[in-house]
């Protein structure tokens, strides 16, 4: 029975996947291939599947909120380390949900809305402050990298970092440094970045194709 279920799941995933790809990739000027897609209305079917995926993704927001509340209420219930913060998080989440509902119902009025003020004044400010700390974490990272042992790639990484940081300084005669930074960013950094992105793109295509033809079937268990 379980094996039959796995076969049905695989067939569904492969069938729907191939139909969706065909609907997305095959346009109007590919001769007989376009004719088949038109005749079986594969583009419409593909569009329905994509809409279903979008709706399902939207409903996961509710799962997320439930997950957040359950995980942190459990921490509060068990008096785990940091439970006070969890309690604060649950109360804040509930308060914002109530405020948003009251705003939507027209009970709370005012421009800008209270939830917008909360978001822009509290969350964005705190996030910006934290983002400022990223620089220090990165410098610490460069230090840590060299402490673990010096190798050519690590040395190159730190030298490039230093060069870019030095060239960003408002010096009066930065000519050589700025040119070196510009060359570094335009040639080796750009080439390396494209290499990494091409690698990721290739791996994405192969993984996708493997799911489509049923070589990767983690969903069947």
């Amino acid at each position, binding site marked *: 029975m379980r094996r039959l279920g796995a076969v049905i799941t695989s067939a569904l995933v492969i069938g729907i996947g191939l139909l969706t790809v065909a609907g997305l990739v095959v346009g109007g000027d590919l001769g007989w291939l376009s004719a088949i897609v038109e005749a079986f209305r594969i583009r419409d079917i593909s569009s329905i599947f994509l809409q279903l995926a979008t709706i399902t993704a939207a409903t996961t927001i509710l799962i997320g909120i439930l997950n957040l509340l359950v995980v942190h209420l459990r921490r509060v219930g068990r008096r785990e380390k940091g439970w006070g913060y969890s309690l604060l998080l649950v109360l804040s989440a509930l308060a914002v949900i109530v405020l948003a509902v009251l705003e939507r119902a027209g009970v709370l009025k005012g421009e800008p809305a209270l939830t917008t003020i909360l978001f822009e004044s509290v969350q964005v400010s705190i996030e910006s402050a934290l983002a400022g700390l990223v620089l220090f974490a990165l410098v610490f990272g460069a230090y840590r990298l060299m402490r673990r042992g010096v190798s050519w790639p690590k040395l190159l990484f730190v030298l490039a970092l230093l060069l870019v940081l030095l060239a960003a300084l408002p010096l009066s005669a930065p000519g050589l440094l700025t040119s070196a930074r510009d060359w570094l960013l335009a040639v080796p950094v750009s080439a390396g970045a494209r290499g990494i992105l091409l690698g990721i793109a290739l791996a994405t295509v192969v993984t996708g194709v493997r*799911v489509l033809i049923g*070589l990767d079937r983690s969903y069947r268990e």
Partner: protein
Amino acid sequence: MDGTNQVITILILLLAMAVSVVVTQFIRRRRSLVALRPIPAYQAIPLRVGEAIEGNRPLHVSFGSASLGGDNTLLALASAELFYQAAARAAIGAAPPILTMSDTTAIPLGQDTLRRAYQSRGLLERYPRGQVRWYPAGARSVAFAAALTAMLGDDRVASSVLVGSFGPEVALVAEAAARRDQGVIAASDQLAGQAAAFALSDQPLIGEEIFTAGAYLSESASQVGLVVTLDVLRLLLILGMLIPTALAVGDAILDGRFSAAITRLLGGG
């Protein structure tokens, strides 16, 4: 998408399909012929899991903002495979592994992956559903990073495997882990996040290495097939870039006669 792009896309998909099928069948029959090059991060993960079990502390894996239904759907699947391999090993420990993500669409994927990992060990009754945790990302994922830094201390995490989609804010998490003497393995599909991950990881993963977790941690022939398929396609891609470059350079030096000579050699013109 115009006609040429459609044809190129279909050809790339068909080529990837053909190479995947041929290579995977070949590897299934001749598994011993292929030896994978060692990747330090994948050698370290079983050790990290062992340390976590011995220390009775949880292993932490994070998908970052990798999601289902978006641009990085397949990255989420690859990260889930890595989590499955780590969780299946960590399931026998007293402290269950923790999985975090900032995109809600990855929650069902994470729950299912953790359930399968416990099922694979025959420990389904101990499946800890509360260990899959969603933390909202905010505008720049910094809120997510802040939540993780707090969680690392509160849950006395042994090691973190941050493999998914992260921006430079991954540096905050990795730095917090380093301060607590916790191990970090990190990789991201975003360039800024990858650079930070390279600097702060004990053993970094780079680029497509994220997608090869199954091959290195399970060594199943099908998963090894993915690595070999990637190598074959990478070789074809390199040739695809080198041949036009060689033709262009040759033409520039020989005033256009190089490509004409090649065409004659191949029986054309």
